[in-house]
């Protein structure tokens, strides 16, 4: 187990290194950052001065080493547009993204798992069919479009909910629902199939045979066993939430890391791109690692060697 954790940690660090190299190279090969900083009427001397200040005249290997050394300490340089440290701009945005991701995950769990279980218990009922339809559309419809349509209906026509920015609890409803929908859909489908499988197993038949109340059979004996694949799926989705938050932050003008990242890409603001991409990668690897380790405690049958 310790060896497994150490190996995974090593792999994670290696992946981050590869990511940092790719990000560094892509930013530095795709255009001259110094040119972006120049005023319209600059002279050759000004240009050389800026290159000198940014350290762009040194060999690329040295630049990468400096970049890496600074990045480990959380120093990504100053934003090219606002002249503020990229780290500060990033840190301001992290709470917004975490809150959005947390709200989305909570909604997916609270709605997805019970509905999936219920549709297995009441197989082929109207509820089962509605849940199935809801899941199919959730997996097929692009998030950015669902978001815009919800803005049209709830923000425009009905005027019930705020449609952009971060504020009170009502600001969370639309973005977290869009973020949660596809994960919810997965949980419903998986919850249903895994519950059906468990309900068909010997120990459930035995529990019924000895005369246990059906409610107890389902919610105590069956549910506990049906949860294992759901926890796995939840772990994978947690890490994948980042995918969704980028798109949703853009549509709802949610001031999070994803929005900052895209603004950075659009303005070729390389300190921002490096800071956001590397931090996202770091969180992603960390989450996957924690989830993998947690499995062992949830399902004692899993053994890592």
């Amino acid at each position, binding site marked *: 187990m310790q060896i497994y954790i150490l190996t995974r940690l090593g792999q994670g660090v290696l992946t981050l290194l590869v990511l940092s190299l790719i990000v560094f190279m892509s930013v530095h090969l*795709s255009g001259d950052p110094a040119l972006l900083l120049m005023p319209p009427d600059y002279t050759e001397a000004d240009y050389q001065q800026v290159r000198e200040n940014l350290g762009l005249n040194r060999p690329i290997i040295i630049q990468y080493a400096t970049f890496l050394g600074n990045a480990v300490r959380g120093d990504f340089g100053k934003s090219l547009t606002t002249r503020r440290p990229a780290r500060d701009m990033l840190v301001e945005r992290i709470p917004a993204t975490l809150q959005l991701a947390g709200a989305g995950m909570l909604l997916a769990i609270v709605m997805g798992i019970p509905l999936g279980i219920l549709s297995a218990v009441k197989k082929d009922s109207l509820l089962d069919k509605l849940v199935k339809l809801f899941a199919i559309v959730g997996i*097929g419809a692009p998030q950015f479009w669902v978001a815009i349509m919800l803005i049209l209906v709830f923000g425009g026509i009905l005027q019930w909910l705020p449609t952009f920015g971060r504020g009170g609890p009502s600001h969370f409803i639309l973005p977290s629902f869009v973020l949660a929908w596809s994960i919810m859909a997965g949980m419903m489908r998986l919850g249903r199939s895994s519950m059906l499988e468990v309900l068909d197993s010997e120990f459930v038949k035995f529990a019924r045979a000895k005369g246990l109340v059906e409610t107890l059979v389902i919610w105590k004996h069956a549910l506990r066993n049906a949860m294992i694949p759901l926890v796995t799926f939840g772990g994978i989705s947690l890490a994948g939430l980042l995918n969704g938050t*980028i798109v949703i932050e853009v549509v709802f003008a949610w001031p999070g890391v994803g929005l900052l990242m895209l603004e950075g890409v659009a303005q070729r603001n390389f300190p921002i791109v490096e800071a956001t991409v590397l931090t996202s990668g770091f969180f992603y690897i960390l989450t996957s690692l924690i989830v993998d380790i947690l499995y062992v405690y949830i399902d004692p049958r899993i053994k890592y060697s």
Partner: protein
Amino acid sequence: MARTTLTKSYSFGRITRLLSGKTKLPWIPIIILSVMVICAIFAPLLTPYEPTHKDIINSRIGPAEISAYPLGTDILGRDILSRLIFGARTTVYISIVALATGAVVGTVLGLIAGYLEGWLGAMIMRFADAVMGFPTILVALIIVVLLGQGTGNIIIAVAVTVWARFARMIRADVLSVKERDYVVLAQIAGVAPPMIICRHIFPNVVNTLMVLTSLQVGQVILLEASLSFLGLGLEPGSPAWGIMVAEGRDVILDMWWLSLFPGIAITVVVMAFNFFGDWLRDFLDPKLRRA
């Protein structure tokens, strides 16, 4: 000899099963996908206008207001219906090329990684893990930053995120196939490894390859649309469904039809592909149903 006869009778069985009419074909997805492919191939013949044709006098026309523009026009007076049909062409072209590239690269690397388990195989799988270890949009975003916008680059971005899934699945299949007696016997007989892979192993992973491909199409279309929506894909103004949704975003309250129709197109097509992929999986390989 024995192997070929077996494979043949098996695939004949499948075809007779299809022709006998006992298998229920997923007609609705098949019809939707056929319509889409026809739109993609014959787009210039089917559309009343060029996708970039601007009719400033008739701009901002709502759906069904003027018979000349059944689905309305956008801010610049471009016909929504024509752009939708050309959008089908963009989607089909990008997803086919990107998916084919990813599938071929992933299959070849998966075959190699599965057959040669040494350092080369380990290295391929570490790369696959690294790609799969990141959210697809993040990977694609880095590639677009590196290479810039454009059809070719969006295809590369999608292919890079897709190949790793193929490599992983194919490798897992190869690991079990290569333990079978006929492979071991071929090795003893001294058949060269490339020959063993092509003749004896590859035919046994074709099922997995087909199922995985059909299940990935929907994901690829969604990824391409998301990238286009975020402005990371094709040039602004191109007739792509993701870009059309983005163009309608700022005027959604006044001109709802700009975003509504392309979004419906994406949803319907992705759902059709997902249904078809599920059906194909059950038809070709009922064992995979649980996976």
